[in-house]
């Protein structure tokens, strides 16, 4: 049973029945723009600071000849890895995440990066959090810009009776730069929801000058601290954890230590469970800058990186199981990022230096594809300074999450992120409806039916009713999220149109069809070729 987002306006749309089609299994997904604006969906952003070594995290099993040529000193023996499928495995310490993967609750996006990779931690973190290009300096965060569209005028007038909860929560001392808005950071920083501090408010003598501006800012911060702390505390009191969050693996050093990521996610789960309506949570884990001793020489499956990944794997798995046990998992999407991957060739200290692209993980039960993208190709000729080349721009990942998870229109995503935004079907599984038999209408006045085969079964047709003469763009993605076909057709009023003819190069299987109107509304359909 798919989760349905309740729509107040659903009754307004006509839902004619469609004759079931042979040859195509079609199911529609909602117009993303129809997700209720007060959607209770939550994004949890996990920042793995330091630059995670993707090649020892998500291991391409079909590349061992290359790996043993260029990465021998830190490479992990194939038999020790945790296999996901015939060609891909995780680090030996990531068994818990493999279970999530098997369960369809973990997605891997291969080789995420951006053009002209900057290898400075700080600069690249700025790029990843602001969602800018490598040569652009943007002070706001990508999530902050989105939240700015949802919390007009923030912080003035917030919390309000409409929106009594903080837009975002950063676990820790520092408001995460991802949530930096044009005026102020949208996140409330929370160290410990059980131990919040009430700041004493008094009536200040305000003045209409620069002193007054700063004083007003401080007072707003104090007032928000108190109001938001109240709702955070309430939520934490009401909320619970349904599973025990494990300590660091007892075989790893230092013994008996808590799992730094698990401790944070535990708080997040409790606040969500208690009904906190913040849309975004950020957690932060340091230590991935493994220049030396990433692995132990004697056993490359052990070392600093093993300990880090064990923590990550346990924490994300405990969190996910907690949400599942509480029936919250379809509301929560998780995303990990690190400011860069590391180099392909190790250095002489059993570590790796700053590199380029690396994998991202998505977690939650609304993930479309277990794996998006192809395995990294390891060429024996890579130089000492080569990192993993990028397959996906991180902004396409962010933007696609905005589209599918937060119902942001593609045109707006372009202005929030970048003009070349390319949609990737990553997280729209839960947007699908239980019933496949619907036409849908967009707010710009289109009605679009289900794709169906023509008299030649290779032709895919669709019924469209458009307001006047327009163009309908389509994009077809394969199971790995690769764009395999894209074009547009002209439509004028009501009629049935041929979208495309299935090219012979496309194998049988399930594809995601994305349709977009001129004015920016978009929807996705699933198409299966026999």
């Amino acid at each position: 049973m798919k989760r349905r987002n309740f729509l107040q306006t659903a009754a307004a749309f006509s839902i004619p029945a469609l004759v079931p089609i042979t040859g195509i299994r079609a199911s529609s997904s909602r117009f993303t723009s129809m997700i209720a604006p007060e959607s209770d969906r939550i994004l949890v952003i996990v920042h793995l600071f330091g630059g995670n070594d993707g090649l020892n995290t998500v291991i391409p099993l079909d590349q061992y000849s290359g790996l043993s040529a260029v990465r021998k000193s830190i490479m992990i023996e194939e038999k020790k890895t945790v296999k996901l499928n015939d060609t891909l495995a995780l680090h030996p310490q990531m068994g818990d995440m493999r279970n999530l993967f098997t369960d369809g609750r973990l997605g891997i996006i291969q080789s995420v990066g951006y053009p002209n990779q900057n290898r400075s931690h700080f600069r690249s973190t700025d790029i990843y959090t602001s969602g800018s290009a490598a040569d652009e300096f943007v002070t706001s965060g990508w999530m902050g810009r989105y939240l700015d569209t949802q919390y007009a005028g923030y912080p003035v007038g917030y919390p309000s009776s409409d929106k009594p909860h903080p837009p975002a929560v950063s676990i820790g001392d520092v408001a995460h730069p991802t949530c930096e808005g044009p005026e102020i950071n949208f996140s409330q920083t929370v160290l410990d929801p059980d131990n919040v501090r009430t700041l004493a408010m008094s009536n200040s003598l305000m003045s209409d000058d620069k002193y007054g501006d700063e004083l007003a800012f401080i007072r707003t911060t104090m007032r928000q601290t108190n109001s938001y702390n109240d709702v955070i505390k309430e939520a934490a009191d009401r909320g619970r954890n349904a599973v025990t969050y494990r300590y660091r693996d007892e075989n790893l050093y230092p013994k008996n230590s808590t799992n730094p990521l698990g401790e944070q996610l535990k708080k997040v789960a409790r606040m969500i469970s208690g009904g906190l309506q913040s849309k975004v949570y950020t957690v932060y884990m340091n230590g991935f800058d493994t220049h030396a001793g990433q692995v132990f020489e004697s056993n490359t499956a052990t070392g600093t990186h093993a300990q880090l990944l064990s923590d990550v794997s346990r924490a994300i798995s405990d969190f996910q199981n907690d949400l599942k046990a509480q029936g919250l998992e379809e509301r929560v999407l998780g995303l990990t990022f690190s400011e860069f991957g590391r180099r392909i060739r190790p250095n002489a200290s059993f570590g790796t230096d700053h590199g380029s692209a690396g994998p991202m993980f998505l977690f939650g039960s609304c993930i479309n594809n277990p794996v998006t993208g192809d395995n990294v190709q390891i060429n024996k000729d890579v130089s000492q300074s080569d990192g993993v080349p990028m397959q996906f721009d991180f902004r396409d990942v962010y933007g696609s999450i905005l589209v599918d998870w937060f119902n942001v229109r593609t045109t707006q995503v372009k202005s929030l992120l970048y003009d070349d935004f390319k949609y990737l079907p990553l997280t729209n599984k839960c947007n699908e409806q239980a019933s496949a038999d619907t036409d849908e209408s967009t707010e710009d006045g289109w009605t679009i039916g289900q794709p169906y085969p023509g008299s030649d079964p290779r032709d895919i047709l669709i019924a469209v009713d458009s307001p006047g003469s327009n163009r309908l763009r389509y994009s077809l993605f394969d199971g790995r999220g690769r764009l395999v076909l894209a074009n547009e057709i002209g439509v004028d009023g009501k009629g049935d149109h041929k979208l495309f003819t299935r090219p012979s190069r496309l194998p049988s299987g399930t594809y995601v069809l994305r349709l977009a109107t001129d004015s920016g509304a978009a929807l996705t359909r699933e198409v299966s070729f026999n």
Partner: protein
Amino acid sequence: MSKQSTQQTTAASPISPYTGEWDLEKAAHLLRRTVLGPSLKEIKTAQKAGLKATLDLLLKEAPIPSPPVKYRNDYDEYIQLGQTWVNSSYRGDNRYRGQSLKGWYYNNMMRVDQTNIQERMCFFWLNYFAISGPITDHRAMYRQLRLYQEMAVGNFRTMIQRITVEPRMLFCLDGHTNDSKNPNENYARELMELFTLGKGEQVAEGDYTNYTEQDVAALARALTGWRNKDFLYSDDNIPVESYFDSATHDTGDKQLSHRLGNKVIRNGGSNEYKQVIDILFSYKATALNFCKRLYRYFVYYEIDSDVLAHVIHPLADTLISNNFEIKPVLYQLLGSQHFYEKSTRGAIIKNPHDYLCSLLRPLGEFWHETKTLNLQRRYELGDQYANYCSELQLEFLEPPTISGWKAYYDSPQYYRHWLSPALMQSRDKIAIDNLLDEDYHIKGDRIDLNYYGYITSLTDPYDLNKVVDETILVFLPRPISTSQRNLLINKITRGADISEWKWQVTKYIQNPGVDTYARPVDDRLRDFFKTLVGFAEFQLQ
């Protein structure tokens, strides 16, 4: 040079000398922006002495603090207790040198025996050059701090010369690996972008108005050849020094772009970096960039076109006409009409250093406690301040990036970066639950603030209204509301008539250290200060 900038210091000009009334509020304003946490005594002295004499005092070259020492017996077995380690090799166990350095730095900041700008400028430089990075040792960090102390109000050109070949900077921006075969542009780029010219608008590919990519490449070559001695954590007595290695220096001509007058830098060997700096200093952009940094540090973050034309430009002219001596610029800025304009008085959000010092230093910090005069305790106390500041997101030897702390450059938030809900709560906790708590301990020794000393330093301790007003003058940037004032008075009277105070405090003053009289007053003052530092206004200076 722009025409605008030469029309300076007419009577109406904001940069012309301040001629208004020199009262306690103005004196306190000047001291809050220059000394960290001025005391009532300092404020009164400054008011009596007048603006000119106060500037003389503040800008006087202060003695260089004696270096950090070995403060505990259980490490650095080759050094005597109380002796400095800054010139000693890393033979033996050196695990407390880091704490020693931190403790020393914060104790310098907290010292109450001089009224000077030295510590304020030391942090200015820490932020200006923002050196960080793992390749360092404690002696190199000390050397860097010492340079900042020596050059607190020195010559800007000399400072750039010295920092260019300073060991820790060479490590930080890869100067130590910059050689003719493989030039590293890291330092050359930041030297222009951050330390001198400033990056202007990008007007074409690789052209940043004030310099181009060609200049970055050319300067990188000109700066080749500087190496650090192999001193890092060395057991041998290798001094923390850099040296010029002519074999790795690029002796060819370096052609600069039209932005830098198409000049050619010819081989100057070990002095070539000075040629580079002289070229960069021949453009007003360098002076302007520096004066903007000073302005954001001392006055306010926003620099509009008026401030640029009528404050920054005249300051830059002063800097240039005084051959880059900083003192005349500070005299001009801190003595200007503009500096005392009401709008920006109190409009700086305190950084963590100011937050701690402005609470503790007016109360005499803990210097009266004999326990803190013990060498080890003193260093541990200083180290504790370092921990608080780190909790408040200021790690003084690890600035977040080479641009420094966001508070001083990141628009539009600037100083607001120092505060977030969690940081507000941390500030509140450190001030109220730790420093002002009657059970405050440093490593097992309970220490307390000297309320007696504070009360007896006031002009009229017997009149509660005057006690409150004088305290507001010292601790808060501007007058507060009546209801806030009443809150403070109630913390003292606890509902009793205000006249009770006179009797209480008379006994208190007459019987120092006698619990019967001391405790009730100390407890009330503690409450009073806990309320005062909780005001939003206490975050400002």
